[in-house]
């Protein structure tokens, strides 16, 4: 039923600084109302990509459309439809939380209610405190609050929960789910893979300026990467691992081979998003630069299906 144009469309995006290619042909699109997580190591090109979409940076090549507009030519009306939470901020912060939000709300044609946003961001008790007097995590909440005060159609969140305690992070997730429910399109970068898994519909993994995989969060990395691992310690004290789509059968055979004895340190592990992510990124790093252009690849990844190694704990 989707005739709605995508909120974000990126085709063969390139960006070089001097002679350094920071982004080398990235393509993806984000549907309206979708939450897309852009993941990748530091220096992979995530922030450059996001800043091009936000209109802060000019691109060297490729096509970009954000809410139907080329960000390089985006005017004030276009900016009014965006919410931007930048990666870092260290402003002097001599305004109080309420003053700051009220002031920024005035920039937009149909802002959210300031008090509602203060409550949603968990800043009620700090509402009358100057931003400079807040802790790092609290300041980050103010950043997020300022990002959503204008009721954006598209929200950019660049590592939004850095410095949050676990409770604040859960509050933040709740807030973002509320925005999703209202139909806000969200582009999220984060180093917390559980956060991406909690909030994202789809993810793209970027490494070395290239998109190495893209897909729904429960499918990314391919079916192979999600094969469970059975791990146990054999009679010689070595840790053994076996990747199998039928872990119960492996365990049953193991028990049979031990004549009914209980295998030591037995675990059945389903790879988390973090495991999948790490194997993708490491796999990419193992490929010499320039040959890993294809998206979704198993090439060059060390075959993890069977390996045996000395247990360092032994």
């Amino acid at each position, binding site marked *: 039923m989707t005739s709605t144009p995508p909120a974000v469309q990126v085709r063969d995006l390139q960006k070089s600084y001097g002679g350094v290619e920071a982004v080398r042909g990235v393509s993806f699109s984000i549907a309206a109302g979708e939450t897309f997580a852009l993941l990748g190591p530091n220096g992979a090109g995530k922030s450059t990509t996001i800043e091009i979409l936000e209109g802060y940076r000019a691109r060297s090549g490729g096509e970009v459309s954000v809410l139907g507009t080329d960000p390089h030519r985006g005017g004030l009306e276009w900016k009014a439809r965006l919410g931007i939470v930048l990666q870092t901020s260290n402003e002097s912060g001599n305004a109080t939380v309420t003053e700051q939000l009220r002031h920024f709300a005035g*920039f937009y044609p149909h802002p959210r209610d300031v008090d509602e946003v203060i409550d949603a961001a968990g800043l009620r008790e700090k509402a009358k405190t*100057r931003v400079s007097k807040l802790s790092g995590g609290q300041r980050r909440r103010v950043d997020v609050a300022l990002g959503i005060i204008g009721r954006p159609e598209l929200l950019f969140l660049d590592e939004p929960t850095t410095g949050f305690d676990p409770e604040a992070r859960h509050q933040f997730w709740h807030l973002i789910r509320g925005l999703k429910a209202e139909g806000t399109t969200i582009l999220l970068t984060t180093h917390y893979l559980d956060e991406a898994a909690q909030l994202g519909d789809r993810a793209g993994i970027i490494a070395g300026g290239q998109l190495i995989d893209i897909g729904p969060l429960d499918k990314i990395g391919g079916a192979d990467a999600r094969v469970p691992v059975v791990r146990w310690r054999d009679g010689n004290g070595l840790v053994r691992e076996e990747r199998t789509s039928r872990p119960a059968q492996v365990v049953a055979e193991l028990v049979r081979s031990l004549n009914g004895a209980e295998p030591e340190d037995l675990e059945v592990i389903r790879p988390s998003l973090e495991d999948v992510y790490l194997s993708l990124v490491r796999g990419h790093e193992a490929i010499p630069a320039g040959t890993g252009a294809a998206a979704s690849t198993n090439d060059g990844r060390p075959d993890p299906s069977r390996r045996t190694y000395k247990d360092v704990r032994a």
Partner: protein
Amino acid sequence: MSATVSVARPQNKAPGTLALGLSRIGYETRLYFRSPDTLLFTFFFPFIMLGIFTAAFSSSGNIGANPDGTGGVSVGTYYLPGMLAAGMLLSGVQNLAVDIAGEKSDGTLKRLGGTPLSPLSYFLGKIGQVFVTAILQAGLLLLVARLVLDIALPTEPEKWATFAWVFVFGVITSAFLGIALAAVPRSGRSATAVVAPVVLVLQFISGVYLQFTTLPEWMQNLASIFPLKWMAQGMRSVFLPESFAVAEQSGTWDLPWVAGALGIWLVLGLVLSRVTFRWIRRDA
């Protein structure tokens, strides 16, 4: 008409540039008075200097007195116009150059650049803040001069008319030059180190701290290139007796030249600030 509206968005009109500019003036002015550094080095600096000069030199008698010690004006009276001019320069150039350079490096401008705030509203806010704070500063200086230092203020309306245009012209020029100068420091931290010496040297050669007419001619000529000398001269024409006009470079107050010099610097400042201002540093 297709039914592809994803988020219910009432179609309100975008806030106007002028209305946002006014809102910025209030916001900027409030923050100005919450910044202790700015208050000390911009707002109260002329007060401190006027106090020091009055205390230091009062014992040596009136300035411009006859050989028998009669006539002339008190030290406070002589320095008041210079301090008013210095206040205009500090409120504009020093205040904005340091402020905006700081906003550039701490991310304030980057954040604003991602919102639908027009740069014009931002400029209106800065210039309005300079204007409001400079008026408060000048008003307070005049009040201190009258009540604390017992300086007689002019009563002729023409003098106050001159005061008004020199002040308005000078403050706006200073504000533009401050915005332009903010492009020079590489970081917010270095801003004060870059801006303060410029402002200080100008004050020394332009007749704010030292009697202009006692400076060597080359220094007077050099100072005449810059706007502060003209602001100070305009202010002297308001607060000093007519007899002091002969001590000026050309023997008169030269008000048309004051207007001309400030006008040229106003246009120059406007063009420079327009050309150099960016929400963020451009990348390669």
